[in-house]
């Protein structure tokens, strides 16, 4: 496997890509050309950055949104989105050898270094919620905009019921010593769990459920939120259990679930922590009820694990909600073809943006940042505000007004910086593969509806 390093995203490649991108920018949002004329006389340098885990165990995920963000910058340069000003891009890696992947301490160090550069106006990142916990306070203190393509932990932006659970223990208020400069273009687990509860109760028609979680912040948070919304929907939770990720057999708890008459099983957690094994053990216990999970379950490993037991097609009929399959959205088609053209020379899988769910999120996050900067320049007579801090504050203010049509569809942010573009697709294992069933959206009052 080729592990891209910071060097891959060099200035030289940006320049080369700029030519490529300039030939096919048909889908570049129209607002840019309107703004470009007024800011032709812009002076100075504006820097944007991305912060993703690029190496170690995260090398299969983080580079995709980083490449996508870089593509957005390349296209902006080709289109003179910043007029006469120079637009620079820095790629940061928050992985360390020590952690063999994302490292919150490295993330905080990266943001500290970027904030010290007065030309840096915003950062796309981070990828992992645990890194966000250490980066958000640094960004907030420095008034620096931070836009995540992939953080789903609800407690990063708002206090919800589960934040005080000992497994999660996030004090949201303490994350923001300065202004609230954090945004995300992906919906949080609050929306996901609302949709999960709706799916369990109204789609799968399970009125009693047994809930597993994997004792980790993501899984436990999702399970707690799920139980809250499921009960609100009228369902009855007959039992719940938190088991460590190393658990190898779930038959004891499944026997309990069986005896309590559960009509479905919910698993809050990741496949690596046992989602597929629960399905496997359901087969051994002869339980013919559905299993529902969150996005942590929707992967190939789930199918492998679920089918590893005596029943080799046990995975069939399992359900999981996950980020909408953006490759199916009409709005993303142009982006993915541009990505493929721009990065054709990269080794597989990095030459294909559809190989990772968050690629398009990285692209839209950077474009939203660039357009916010553009709108500040336009509003300031085509010039950057005199002080760096004012500039950064103005960028954050402009981000709040975002109304952007990109690869993901239409994005706006609510008061907490969360996207209002909330969709989750329900997937079902059919003939040994995850197949999208329906995409659901949830409105601010918690009503779930079919989106597509």
């Amino acid at each position: 496997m080729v592990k891209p390093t910071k060097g891959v995203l060099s200035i030289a490649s940006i320049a080369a890509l700029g030519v490529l991108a300039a030939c096919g920018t048909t889908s570049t949002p129209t607002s840019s050309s309107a703004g470009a004329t007024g800011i032709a006389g812009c002076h100075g340098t504006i820097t944007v950055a991305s912060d993703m885990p690029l190496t170690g165990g995260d090398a299969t995920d983080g580079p995709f949104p980083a490449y996508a963000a870089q593509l957005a910058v390349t296209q902006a340069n080709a289109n003179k989105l910043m007029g006469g000003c120079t637009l620079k891009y820095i790629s940061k890696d928050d992985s360390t050898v020590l952690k063999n992947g994302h490292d919150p301490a490295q993330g905080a160090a990266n943001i500290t270094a970027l904030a010290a550069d007065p030309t840096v106006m915003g950062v796309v990142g981070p990828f992992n919620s645990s890194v966000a916990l250490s980066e958000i306070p640094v960004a907030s203190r420095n008034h620096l905009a931070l836009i995540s393509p992939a953080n789903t932990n609800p407690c990063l932006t708002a206090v919800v019921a589960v934040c005080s659970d000992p497994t999660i223990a996030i004090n949201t208020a303490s994350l923001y010593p300065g202004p609230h400069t954090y945004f995300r273009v992906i919906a949080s687990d609050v929306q996901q769990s609302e949709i999960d509860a709706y799916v369990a109760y109204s789609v799968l028609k399970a009125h009693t459920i047994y809930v597993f979680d994997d004792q980790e912040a993501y899984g436990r948070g999702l399970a707690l939120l799920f139980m809250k919304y499921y009960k609100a929907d009228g369902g009855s939770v007959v039992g719940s259990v938190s088991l460590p990720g190393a658990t190898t057999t779930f038959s004891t708890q499944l026997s309990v679930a069986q005896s309590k008459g559960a009509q479905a099983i919910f698993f809050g957690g990741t496949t690596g922590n046992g989602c597929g094994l629960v399905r496997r053990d359901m087969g051994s216990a002869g339980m013919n009820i559905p299993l529902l999970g969150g996005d942590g379950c929707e992967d190939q490993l789930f199918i492998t694990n679920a089918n590893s037991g005596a029943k080799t097609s046990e995975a069939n009929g399992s359900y999981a909600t996950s980020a909408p399959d953006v490759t199916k959205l009409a709005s993303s088609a142009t982006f993915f073809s541009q990505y493929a053209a721009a990065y054709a020379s990269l080794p597989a899988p990095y030459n294909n943006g559809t190989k990772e769910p968050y690629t398009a999120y990285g692209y839209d996050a950077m474009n939203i940042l660039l357009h916010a900067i553009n709108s500040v320049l336009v509003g300031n007579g085509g010039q950057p505000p005199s002080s760096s801090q004012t500039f950064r504050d103005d960028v954050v203010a402009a981000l709040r007004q975002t109304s952007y049509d990109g690869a993901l569809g239409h994005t706006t942010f609510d008061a907490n910086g969360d996207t209002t573009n909330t969709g989750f697709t329900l997937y079902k294992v059919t003939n040994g593969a995850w197949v999208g069933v329906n995409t659901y959206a949830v409105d601010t009052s918690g009503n779930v509806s079919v989106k597509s």
Partner: protein
Amino acid sequence: MSDQSGTPGAAPGGTGGRTGAVTLVDQGNLGPRTSEGSSFFGAVTPIFRFLYSLISKNFGALLLALIVLSIFGTFLQGGATLMGNQIKNALVLGAIYALVAIGYTMVYGIIELINFAHGDVFTVSGFYAIFIANTLHLNSLATSSFGGLLLALAIVFPLSMIAAGLTGMAIEFVAYRRLRDAPRLAPLITAIGVSFLIEGVMLVREGPDYVTTGQASWINGTAFTIGKVAVGYTDLFVVGTALLLMFALGAFVQRTRLGKAMRSTAQDRTAALLCGIDINRTISATFFIGSALAAAAAVIYSINYGDVKWNIGFRLGIIAFTAAVLGGIGNIVGAGVGGFLIGLIYVFGGSLIGGAWSEALIFAILVLILTFRPVGLFGVEVTTRA
């Protein structure tokens, strides 16, 4: 001339002199603390001392009562079906713990080393079994007919066990032999190092995720149903094979020349030498057999669960070690029974008070054993040697 203070009051059937004979370790230094031996309890009031000795002497009975109570509690909670299902779950789990625990106890018995790498030998054996089954196309053989299944089992068990046995011997030869006369801490730390090394190699070779063994489909179907509890052929296979192996081991250690050499080496290495016993070979053989049993457990695990992962042996190993301590470290029968008891505690504890507490419960039991009954349930009579 013998002090029978170590004879457990509640040890289930047949723990007379013969049980002691299968014990590999001198537990003289592990005897229940008497009042003058324990400064802490000795210092407290006589009531505490009385309570301590009461618990210490009746530890087995108390534990058994606790298990019976929790089984009854499960019955109240979910009826006979839940109770039956959980007993089945506990026996399947306990069988695997028991086989792994025997490896710990044999090695401790003969060289007084907690072989931390033993759990990892279990994991490695799981991968050996996958390799053997895939190379020899046993999966299609085993699912073709009943005769094919027997043939596949007759191939995969001995080959995995031999491979694991040789691995165990190699570990002893490379890592422990030179340290045999070193202070105890040195081989213990080496054992932890070997464990990390094996896990690291497996992580790199096999990846971080569960690997499908492909053996879960070898045996399936329901053998019979008691009430609403369906007992599968796999369940019978797991428990039956484990019991068979344990009895075979018992007979081996009790009756054969090598078995007697192992027992005598465990009891007195110098005397064994004077009898002309080759100590190195005997210790090698002990590692071979202990590791082979771990391999048998791994094959059973592969067939029952269908997944192995680079680090599954770690937790399983520690729980199995607790089973060995519960039974009386060094005591083979104790390890077998301890494995099943730990299976019961794990499952019924998990069923009653929530699975999150299962492992905490196991280690709480470990602490209680070490406090009240360091020789374990089946500990041997502490013999005064003149």
